[in-house]
């Protein structure tokens, strides 16, 4: 006997619902029973496995501006329809539509506890924000790729609707969510590592079990042209602060940085400065703080005229457990200060 059809609720925006483009961005929350717009194509892909029982749409501006009210309405419409899975988009690389899909995803994962799948271009900003809330199927940059994107979206929607969860990203093809889950395997880690090593030695390139996340590439800044005219600054993630930690900087999971004067100091005096970093033994840097803030050497080069002047304060935080978004934010704030003080180059140290 055939299995029960998976019930899908589909969220789209005013454009894909045929209401209109930008000018209709404030159109109200509406719905219909059955598929609409891209849902029609989605239905062709799911065959007899599933059905879109309800389609919900709203103007992108409205849902972003009055999120609370609109999401309450969406919650009600989803609850009524009793879906096995909610699908939102695909929103490709559209900004507000992507965010709207993300908001619907978070509503489903956190409040309604319904499995949710959205379609987004991998670099859509909503991916970073909502990837823990939804399975995100990687889509083309624009709707031109719709035809190519729908089969995958349909396959995962059916699977997710039936099982309530999916296998690992690397097997299923959705964007990695940043979760690691335990699973049973036949061979222990040592055996797998040796196998991997043997393959590597044989010139093959076996995939790693723990892929590292990608990091944004920033092109290196142009070098200093004339060091003898340069202002140089010191920045450290090594947690070296004045005794007593006057700003109560956190010892891990930094959410702020400190700025402290080194005016007139030939070196960072032991006793007056202390390492408070929660991630390494500060015995050696407490003994000689220049081991993490190399002030003595910089003063010498300043005196010798290798560069013009050392900025009379240094920047510090404890770089441990700091997530990329926070590091970026603090890094940008420090960079802004350096820029304002006309610093030509900065020396960073990290522990």
């Amino acid at each position, binding site marked *: 006997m055939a299995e029960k059809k998976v019930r899908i609720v589909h969220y789209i925006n005013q454009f894909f619902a045929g209401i209109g483009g930008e000018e209709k961005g404030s159109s109200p929350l509406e719905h219909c029973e059955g598929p609409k717009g891209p849902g029609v194509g989605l239905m062709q892909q799911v065959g007899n496995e599933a059905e879109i029982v309800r389609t919900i749409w709203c103007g992108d501006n409205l849902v972003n501006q009055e999120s609370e009210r609109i999401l309450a309405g969406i919650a009600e419409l989803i609850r009524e329809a009793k879906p096995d899975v909610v699908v939102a988009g695909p929103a490709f690389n559209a900004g507000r539509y992507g965010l709207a899909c993300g908001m619907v995803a978070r509503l489903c994962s956190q409040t309604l506890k319904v499995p949710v799948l959205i379609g987004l271009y991998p670099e859509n900003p909503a991916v970073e924000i909502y990837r823990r809330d939804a399975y995100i199927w990687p889509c083309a940059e624009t709707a031109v790729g719709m035809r190519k994107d729908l089969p995958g979206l349909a396959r995962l929607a059916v699977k997710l609707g039936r099982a309530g969860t999916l296998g690992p990203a690397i097997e299923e093809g959705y964007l990695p969510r940043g979760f690691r889950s335990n699973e049973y395997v036949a061979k222990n880690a040592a055996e797998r590592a040796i196998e991997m090593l043997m393959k590597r030695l044989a010139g093959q390139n076996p995939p790693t079990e723990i892929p*590292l996340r990608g*990091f*944004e*590439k*920033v*092109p*290196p*800044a*142009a*070098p*200093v*042209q004339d*060091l003898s005219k340069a202002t*140089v600054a010191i*920045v450290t*993630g*090594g947690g070296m602060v004045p005794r007593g930690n006057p700003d109560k900087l956190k010892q891990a999971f930094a959410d702020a940085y400190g700025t402290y004067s080194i005016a007139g100091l030939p070196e960072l005096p032991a006793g007056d400065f202390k390492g408070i970093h929660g991630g*390494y*033994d*500060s*015995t*050696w*840097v407490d*003994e*000689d703080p*220049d*081991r*993490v*803030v*190399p002030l*003595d*050497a*910089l003063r*010498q*080069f300043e005196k010798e005229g*290798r*560069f013009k002047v050392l900025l009379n304060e240094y920047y510090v935080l404890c*770089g441990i457990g700091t997530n990329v978004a926070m*590091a*970026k934010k*603090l*890094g*940008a704030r*420090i*960079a*802004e200060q*350096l*820029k304002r003080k006309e*610093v*030509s*180059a*900065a*020396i*960073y*140290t*990290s*522990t």
Partner: protein
Amino acid sequence: MQKEAERAGIPTALITAIPSVAKSVGVSRIITGGGIPYPAGNPSLPRDREIEFRRRLVAKALEAVSTAVKEPTVFDVSIA
């Protein structure tokens, strides 16, 4: 953090004991330091040699920020 300074047009050099991590996250100019809990030193060296080592690290950092690079580049310093 360095990348934000680079983005703002300020060249940076990072003294770190773990250049591989710095490289993988995309730090432009990397100086291999003395050790994780003492990037700009090495307490196992006699005092005068440690000071010379730090001088070399900082000299290399100054050289690095004066050098054009296209991608993460590691600059090495010999122990004094």
